[in-house]
């Protein structure tokens, strides 16, 4: 305990570095004073908080799937009309959030150095188990630190974590307890919890910055595999070869061809399609008796399996996601869809007959239920989701002073269907503008209720599922799917999202880049692999928009909805 007290004192002294106190031999203290006053060549250009999936995947990749990650993750705020990937670049860690990260870190560290697992991670034998062994501690911590921080530890960092392990080992009388504390410290470090992107001056374009090799390794890996860079990436980064365009392209090609690209595709579409909303999806149990927690859990998985099958397994055209009848089914979903599946199986491939009208992602209960109310469907929410998520066309919010008196309640027998109720909006010029954007296409979903079940009547009145989008008229989700597949905005939208997802900031001002990428995407048959290979291999993806280092904090951007609502 006395020794631990010393650690605390030493660390406290380090905290005072800013005021000129120098503690030799510990961490940042060895930075020369000059470094604080000259602008460093390497500059941190982004701190992107790990998402829950990225954290879990990193731990599983580094320590193996046996190491359990138990805890709750502070959610990352999604900026409206943007990706969580963009939100992650603005995400701070609150006291409650850090408390959770700390609890997870300690729990992981205990498992890693328990008797069962330590053999995999401690490459040496401590001289005695009950005391510190500085050499063995550093030998253990250096490779772990390199994986966790996605770059080698600096010499002062390694010395620091080693010292922490040694002092904790002396205090607890256990070499492994010492390692445990050092590892727990790394796991709550901002160097782990944030993907720290660093850039250096671009040799080809004076004044501009490009990501350094370590940041390129992390970006490739999180973009394509949604996990931490592996040995091959780190080795190549160490050799400086990821700054070479050809090498970068080779990596991109290999990584999108790997089975691990599935994790990246899943993460991308979960972000693009707002899957965090599934966490809060609830349906009224009396109105929708077929909807239960097993169904709720299966819905996002069914969408993702359909996507992965179409764009990866079959290497198909992205646009066919709006028309395909192929999907996957499990038993809870079979009862919701009222179809038969083999009694024993978990997930099985399933093809809807064309007359089911369930074409593509938009005909799946996951989409239909998510964009409905808890007790009824909503053509407006569904239409808005199609516009905003799949076509990247933000729909303005209702005006603050909107008068809804024109819309009558659902029990009114004179207005049995959503179409009739919504037509009331058309009488109000204020409502009409926006509802004309969402409702005509949203009404084509009406043969599916708020839980995504098929129906032909609402309140006893037959449902008309005619829809329209940008001048084209059609019937049902199948008709909408055809219209979506032919809409160039669908391909452009996913291309723009891929750029945003990679860079961690909104790109809607960079129309030239989006159009160029969308053009290549189209030319290559709308293949998602090709799209991500293009994003990952393009040198442009690693250029940093120049921004002075001391630019004021911009916490609130201009209202994009305002700028882009010329629909």
């Amino acid at each position, binding site marked *: 305990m006395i020794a631990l007290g010393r650690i*605390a004192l030493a660390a406290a002294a380090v905290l005072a570095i800013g005021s000129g106190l120098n503690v030799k031999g510990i961490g940042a203290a060895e930075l020369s004073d000059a470094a604080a006053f000259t602008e460093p060549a390497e500059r941190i250009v982004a701190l992107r908080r790990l998402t829950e999936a990225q954290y879990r995947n990193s731990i599983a990749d580094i320590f193996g799937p046996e190491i359990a990650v138990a805890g709750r993750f502070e959610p990352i705020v999604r900026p409206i009309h943007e990706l969580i990937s963009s939100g992650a670049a*603005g995400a701070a860690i609150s006291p409650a959030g850090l408390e959770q990260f700390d609890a997870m870190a300690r729990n992981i560290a205990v498992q890693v150095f328990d008797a069962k697992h330590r053999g995999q991670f401690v490459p040496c034998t401590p001289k005695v188990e009950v005391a510190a062994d500085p050499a063995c501690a550093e030998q253990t911590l250096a490779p772990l630190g390199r994986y966790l921080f996605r770059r080698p530890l600096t010499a002062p960092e390694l010395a620091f974590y080693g010292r922490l392990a040694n002092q904790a080992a002396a205090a607890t009388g256990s070499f492994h307890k010492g390692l445990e504390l050092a590892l727990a410290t790394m796991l709550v470090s901002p160097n782990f919890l944030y993907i720290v992107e660093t850039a250096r001056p671009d040799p080809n374009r004076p004044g501009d910055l490009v990501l350094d090799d370590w940041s390129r390794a992390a970006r490739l890996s999180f973009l394509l595999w949604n996990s931490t860079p592996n040995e091959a990436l780190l080795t190549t980064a160490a050799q400086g070869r990821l700054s070479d365009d050809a090498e970068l392209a080779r990596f991109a090609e290999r990584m999108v061809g790997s089975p691990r690209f599935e994790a990246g595709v899943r993460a991308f579409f979960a972000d693009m399609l707002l899957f965090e909303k599934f966490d809060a999806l609830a349906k009224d149990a009396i109105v929708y008796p077929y909807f239960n927690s097993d169904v709720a859990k299966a819905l996002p998985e069914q969408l993702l399996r359909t996507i992965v099958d179409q764009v990866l397994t079959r290497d198909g055209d992205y646009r066919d996601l709006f028309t395909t009848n192929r999907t996957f089914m499990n038993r809870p979903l079979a009862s919701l869809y009222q179809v038969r599946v083999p009694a024993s199986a978990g997930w099985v491939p399933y093809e809807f007959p064309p007359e089911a009208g369930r074409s593509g992602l938009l005909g799946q209960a996951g989409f239909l239920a998510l964009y409905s109310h*808890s007790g009824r469907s909503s053509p407006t929410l569904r239409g808005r989701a199609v516009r905003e998520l799949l076509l990247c066309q933000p729909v303005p919010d*209702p005006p*603050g002073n909107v008068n809804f008196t024109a819309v009558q*309640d659902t029990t009114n027998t004179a207005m049995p269907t959503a179409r009739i109720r919504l037509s009331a909006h058309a009488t109000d010029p204020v409502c009409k503008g926006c509802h004309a954007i969402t409702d005509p296409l949203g009404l084509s979903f009406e043969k599916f209720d*708020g839980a995504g079940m098929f129906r032909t009547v609402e309140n006893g009145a037959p449902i008309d599922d005619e829809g329209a989008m940008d001048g084209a008229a059609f019937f049902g989700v199948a008709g909408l799917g055809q219209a979506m597949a032919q809409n160039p905005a669908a391909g452009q939208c996913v291309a723009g999202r891929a750029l945003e997802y990679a860079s961690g900031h909104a790109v809607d001002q960079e129309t030239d880049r989006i159009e160029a990428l969308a053009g290549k995407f189209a030319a290559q048959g709308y293949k998602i692999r090709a799209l991500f290979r293009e994003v990952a291999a393009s040198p442009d993806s690693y250029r940093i928009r120049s921004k002075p280092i001391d630019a004021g904090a911009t916490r609130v951007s201009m209202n994009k909805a305002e700028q882009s609502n010329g629909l």
Partner: protein
Amino acid sequence: MAYDLTRRGALRGMVNGAAVLVGVPLLDAFLDGNGTALAATGGALPVRFGTWFWGLGVNPPRWYPTKPGANYDIPEELVPITPFAKKINIYGNFNVPLDGAPNLPHISGGAAVRTGRALTADRGLPGESFDVTIGDRIGTRSRFRSLELSASGDARNSLSGRGGGNLNPSEGSPSAFYERLFGAGFKDPNSASFTPDPQVMARRSVLSAVSEQRHALERSVGADDRAKLDQYFTSVRQLENQLEVELTKPDPLQSCMVPPKVTDKPVSAEIETVIANHKMMTELLVMALACDQSRVFNMMLNNGASSLTRIGSTITHHQLTHEEVLDQKLGYQPEATYFLTRIMEAWGDFVGALDRVKEGDRTLLDNTLVFAHSECEFAKFHTIDNLPMMTAGSAGGRLKTGIYVDGAGSPISRLGLTMQQVMGVSVDTWGTQSMQTNRAVTEVMV
């Protein structure tokens, strides 16, 4: 420490789940004559601050009193607060000028109340919420800087944070909340024995070490990221502080009684489940305050565009406010108003739970200031002027109570300024643009 045993013997546990203390005269010996300080240590009883949020406003003619000043009349929708009206203030006629920024429905109002700023885009809060500012003033020495709760179970439902991507996530599970408060690391202030946990000492050292990375990172970041790192290191300091508290023998607290463990019940949008969850959370929160585990809290009953439903209904609270016909005879929407009634009852329960805990000759409510508000005035039209607000409790006698204040159309940020000043934050001007104000609500300040 014989008093501990005496106290234990005198406590009678929980009635209907709420902490009830029967007479423990011996314990009053620890308070000074006014019941405001611990005679044993000379330390003052803690004063707490919290917020209580509900979504979708009120029916203004049925909610606001008609007569400003003390002894306000209690209109129909305020009936649930009747027993505590002497301890509750109502604030009406405070406006939310947005200076041309759009009124993002169900978002702009709550953000303006809490930050004194107009949202220009939905990217989290437009600035630091004043509960966080108050937490910096009064919350840094307790085990938890603040406690955020969402009765509807949604971690993203929060109006507390430092702005932008910094939002304090809400706890949605009573059992997880219990573990956090009273599980490992909790030190009963009334326990006779105290042994610092060596593991905790080690952890505190580890966290101190994390701060070491600050300099190396900050030397090369831009302003956005530096702000983020500042927030990260603030969180580290808070966690260190939490461990420091766990390593220090706490002062005895008369009203602190460790509640029994709780088991989560399923929470959905169905209002009964949310009300039940709110009740469980409230009971835990009250004891967290009585045991001085935190001095700041934020309770969210529902979300802004309330997705509450009644079992079997095809329509949510939010939809009802927009689509239900305004009953011409009644003058309001009866189905939507059902939810409001239940919400006001929950607020009454919340205030009552705080008021049942005695602290000397006062109650926990008296030693607390709770600021309650919604995100709009009349949800049907998304109006945000005249947004309904209340305070309960007197912050240990620093606020006059039992008053209806008519703001006469002045900016709503006056409330945020007032709350901060009452809680000891050194601030004389707060808010931006038309919401910038230096006029506290002096009618209620002592």
